[in-house]
C-alpha cells in the first residue's frame, strides 16, 4: 500500500485570514446574541410557553446529528477496512468534533439558566434521555479525540482500528440518543416512536457526508491541492444511497401515522394544512432535501463537481427544514387533552401555535455553525489532517 503525505494547510494567505475573520465575526455575533438572550431572558426570543424549543434547537440538533454523520468517512476507512477512505479519515474526525462542539454550544447557550451549566454536569437523573446524552456527547469527544490521536501519532497507530470501531459504535448510540430525545416523549403525537432513533441515524449519515464533501472540496480548491474525481464520485454515490434511505424512513414514518386514525389530525397538519410547516415539509424536506439531490446525484449532472456541491447544499438546507418541521412543527400542533372536543383557553389550548424566530435566536444558531467551521479551519492549519494530494493516481495506488 502506498503511503500518503499529510500536510498542514499553510494558512498565511489573505484569503485564509479573511475566511477566519468572517467566521470569527459570526462567532462574535453569536456571543452577543447569547448575551442579549441571557440578560433579558427568553422574552426577546420568538419562543414562548407553547413553542418551547425554537430555532436554536433546530441548529443545535442539526449540528449534533451532522457531527456524528461526519465521522462516517473515517468509520468506513477503519471499521470496514476500505483503504481508499484512509486519507480522508482525519478531516472526517476533526469535522465531527467541530460540529459537535458547535451544536452543543448552541444547545447549552439556549438554556434558560445557561450560567448553570455546572449543575447539568453534577446533577444527574438517569431516567432522562438528556442525561444520557450528556454522557454520550462527552464520550464522543473522548473517543473521537483518541481516534484522531491514533491517526496522527505513529506510536499509537496500531490502536487505530480499535479506536475507530469504538468511535463508530459510540456514534451510533449517540444518534440513537439524539433521536430518542424526541422518541421518548409521550406528550406529542409526532414523537413517541422508536422510528426516530434509526431515522436520525440515517439522517446523520446524509447530513454529515454532505457537509464533509463541501468542506473537503472547499479545502482542496482553496489551497490549490488536487482532489481527484475518484474520491468525489465514490462519495457522491454513497451520499445518494443515504439520501434515498432518509426518504424511505420519512415515507414509512408518515405512512404508519396515516394508518392510525388518532394521528390523522397531526398528519393533516404537517402534510396539508400546516401552512409554513407543510411548505417546509414538502418543498424543504422532501423536494429540496431529498428529491432534487437524488436527481442530481443519480443523473449525469452528478458527474460535475459543481452539481455535486449544489446537491450537498440542498441536502443541508433540506436537513434544516426537516429539523424545523420535526422540532417546531410537532410543538405547533396543539396537545389533544380531550380527544374529540374543541378546546379554548387563555393558554392557547386547541389552537395551532405560531412561531416567529427572532434575530438573536438566528445569530445564536449561526454562531454554532461558525464555531464549527472556525475550529475546522484552524485545525487544518495546526495539524496534518489533509493529504497533500488526492489525485486519482494516488488514490488508485491505495486500493491495491
Amino acid at each position, binding site marked *: 500500500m502506498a503511503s500518503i503525505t499529510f500536510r498542514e494547510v499553510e494558512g498565511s494567505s489573505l484569503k485564509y485570514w479573511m475566511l477566519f475573520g468572517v467566521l470569527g465575526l459570526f462567532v462574535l455575533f453569536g456571543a452577543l446574541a447569547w448575551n442579549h438572550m441571557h440578560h*433579558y*431572558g*427568553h*422574552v426577546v426570543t420568538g*419562543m*414562548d*410557553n*407553547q413553542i*418551547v*424549543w425554537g430555532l436554536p434547537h433546530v441548529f443545535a440538533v442539526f449540528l449534533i446529528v451532522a457531527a456524528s454523520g461526519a465521522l462516517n468517512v473515517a468509520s468506513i476507512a477503519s471499521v470496514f477496512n476500505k483503504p481508499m477512505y484512509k486519507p480522508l479519515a482525519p478531516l472526517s474526525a476533526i469535522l465531527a468534533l467541530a460540529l459537535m462542539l458547535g451544536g452543543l454550544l448552541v444547545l447549552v447557550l439556549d*438554556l*434558560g*439558566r*445557561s450560567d*448553570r*451549566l455546572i*449543575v*447539568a454536569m453534577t*446533577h*444527574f*437523573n438517569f*431516567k*432522562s*434521555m*438528556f*442525561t444520557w446524552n*450528556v454522557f454520550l456527547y462527552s464520550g464522543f469527544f473522548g473517543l473521537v479525540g483518541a481516534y484522531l490521536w491514533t491517526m496522527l501519532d505513529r506510536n499509537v497507530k496500531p490502536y487505530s482500528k480499535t479506536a475507530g470501531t469504538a468511535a463508530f459504535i459510540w456514534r451510533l448510540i449517540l444518534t440513537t440518543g439524539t433521536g430518542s*430525545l424526541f422518541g*421518548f*416523549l*409521550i*406528550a*406529542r403525537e409526532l414523537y413517541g416512536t422508536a422510528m426516530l432513533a434509526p431515522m436520525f441515524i440515517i439522517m446523520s449519515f446524509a447530513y454529515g457526508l454532505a457537509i464533509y464533501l463541501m468542506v473537503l472540496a472547499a479545502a482542496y480548491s482553496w489551497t490549490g491541492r488536487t482532489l481527484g474525481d475518484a474520491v468525489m464520485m465514490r462519495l457522491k454515490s454513497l451520499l445518494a444511497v443515504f439520501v434515498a434511505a432518509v426518504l424511505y424512513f420519512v415515507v414509512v414514518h408518515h405512512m404508519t401515522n396515516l394508518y392510525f386514525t388518532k394521528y390523522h389530525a397531526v398528519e393533516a397538519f404537517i402534510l396539508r394544512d400546516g401552512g409554513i410547516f407543510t411548505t417546509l415539509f414538502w418543498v424543504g424536506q422532501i423536494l429540496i432535501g431529498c428529491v432534487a439531490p437524488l436527481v442530481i446525484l443519480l443523473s449525469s449532472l452528478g458527474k460535475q463537481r459543481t452539481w455535486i456541491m449544489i446537491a450537498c447544499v440542498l441536502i443541508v438546507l433540506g436537513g434544516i427544514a426537516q429539523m424545523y418541521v420535526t422540532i417546531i412543527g410537532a*410543538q405547533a400542533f396543539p*396537545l389533544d*387533552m*380531550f380527544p*374529540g*372536543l*374543541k*378546546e*379554548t*383557553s*387563555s*393558554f*392557547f*389550548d386547541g389552537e395551532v401555535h405560531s412561531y416567529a424566530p427572532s434575530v438573536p435566536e438566528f445569530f445564536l444558531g449561526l454562531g454554532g455553525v461558525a464555531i464549527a467551521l472556525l475550529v475546522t479551519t484552524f485545525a487544518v492549519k495546526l495539524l496534518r489532517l489533509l493529504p497533500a494530494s488526492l489525485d486519482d493516481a494516488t488514490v488508485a495506488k491505495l486500493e491495491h
Partner: protein
Amino acid sequence: MSEHDTKSEKEPNSPERRRFIGAATAAAGLAIAPGVMLYEVAHGRPEEQAASSAVRWGMLVDATQCATGCDDCVSACSTENGWTPVAESRHPKQAPQWIRKLELQDPLTQMETNLPMMCQHCADAPCVDVCPTGASFKRADGIVLVNRHTCIGCRYCMMACPYKARSLVHESLNDTQLADVPRGMGCVEACTLCVQKIDRGDGNTACAEACTAAGHNALLFGDMNDPESEISKRLRELPTKQVRADLNLNLGVRYHGI
C-alpha cells in the same frame, strides 16, 4: 402465597397497602388520641417533620359545578403565588400560567364543559422522568415540584408534559416575587398545589378556597390516601376521570363531569 399477595408486599405504594396504612393510621388515631390525630391530619405536620408518603395530596374537580366565565381560581392562584395574570402581562404569549380555565365543546352535540387545568401531579410524571438534573421531582406527599436550585431551564419537561401545565419564566421579575413563593427568570414552574400553604398547615389550596368562597364548590382538595378525608369519600361516590387516562400516569387531579 399467591402472586398477587407477593406483589402487594413488594410495592410499598400499591393501593392495597395505602388503603391499609390509611385505615390503620385512622384506627390507631381513633384508638389512642382521636383529637390529636385528626388535628394532625387536617392541619399538616410539625415544621421539622418531612413530607410523608403516607399522604397523597390531590384534587377533585367537579366540572358540572365549574361556572362559565368564572376565573376566581385563576386569580386566587396568581395572588397566592405572585404570578402576573395573563391579562395584565405585557407578553401574554410568554406569560406563565399556573392554572387556566379550559372551555370544551363537543362539535357534534354542542355540549359545553368548563374546567380548570393545571399540573395534574402525576404519580408517574413524565416531567420527572425527562428532567436531566432531577430538578423536576415528586415530593413524598405526591406534589410534583421544580427545584429551582437545580433547574437549568432546558424546557424538556415542557416538551414532555401532556397537559401543557408548565411555564418558563421568560423575563426578569424585578424582585416582585412573594417571600413564600420563590420564582425566577429562566426556570420552569407550575402549580405547586400551594405547597407553602400545605406546609403551613392550611390544608387547602388558594384555588379551592376561592371556588368555595364563590359558592361553586367545584374544587375539593385533600389527602387521597386517607379514606376518611372528604376528597376520598367524594371520589368513592362520584364517577371521575383522569385526563389522558390512556397514558396511565395516575393523576393527583381527578375530574367529574368530563
